């Protein structure tokens, strides 16, 4: 399931959110993500899933990129991509941290057969989003996480 980008593809409804990497602000981020998703015309079920995926990503940033330091920053960027030739839209969410660059090969889901607490955030993100890509900032500071969810136009406003 993809959306082929052409010259007629439009990127709209750009929203940018910056929060402190403090667990206290996760609730604020959830509320903001939910409002943005609904504003972009996403239905409630998809919105709930997107909120969870973003929450998991933010939690991972706080825990792994920043090692729990709460005075760092996380940027969240939202885009809605529309292509006139497609019956669906793409919701793109870009999460950017300025912390430690964890080796990309280590960012993966663990074996779920083993029942243990923790370590399933990446699995949840990958289960919910249609596309999930991690890449390091070229300046050596921080990591980007690009999340994409495709939603049928009939399920949007």
């Amino acid at each position, binding site marked *: 399931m993809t959306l082929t980008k052409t010259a007629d593809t439009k990127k709209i409804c750009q929203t940018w959110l910056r929060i402190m990497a403090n667990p206290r602000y996760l*609730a604020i981020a*959830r509320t903001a993500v939910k409002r943005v998703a609904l504003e972009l015309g996403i239905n409630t079920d998809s919105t709930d*899933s997107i909120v*969870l995926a973003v929450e998991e990503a933010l*939690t991972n940033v*706080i*825990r792994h990129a920043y090692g729990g330091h709460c005075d760092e920053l996380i940027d969240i960027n939202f885009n809605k991509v529309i292509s006139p030739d497609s019956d669906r839209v793409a919701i793109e969410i870009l999460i950017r941290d300025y912390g430690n660059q964890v080796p990309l090969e280590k960012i993966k889901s663990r074996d779920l057969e083993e029942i243990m607490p*923790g370590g399933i955030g990446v699995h*949840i993100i990958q289960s919910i989003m249609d596309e999930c890509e991690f890449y390091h900032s070229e300046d050596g500071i921080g990591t980007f996480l690009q999340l994409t969810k495709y939603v049928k136009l009939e399920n949007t406003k």
Partner: protein
Amino acid sequence: MNQHDCIDDIVKSVDTKDDFARIELTGEIDMGCAMGLRSTLMEIIQQRPTTVMIIMSEVDFMDSSGLATLVEALQACRKYQGHLKLIGLTQRVRNVFEISRLDTIFELFDTEEEALA
């Protein structure tokens, strides 16, 4: 880490009697609350109640941090053959269990009556 201590916001009530513990949770369980919830649950489980019932009908949101806390509680109960029962999960919270494939690991019930039967 400067944990946001929101335990008072999510633990609505705790009732312990004999070998039975009933904990009612509310609100949103995330990374900020998970540590406090863990402490509360472990303190109760240390008393080795035969059954620990966690009422979650008022829990609007839970992420993998909250799930990890419940997994720890479940493992702690199992060490002495105790039971951890989760009651009244909303579909939104149940989805997190299903995505994580933990819905078949936990004892899930729609109502307290079913859990006590």
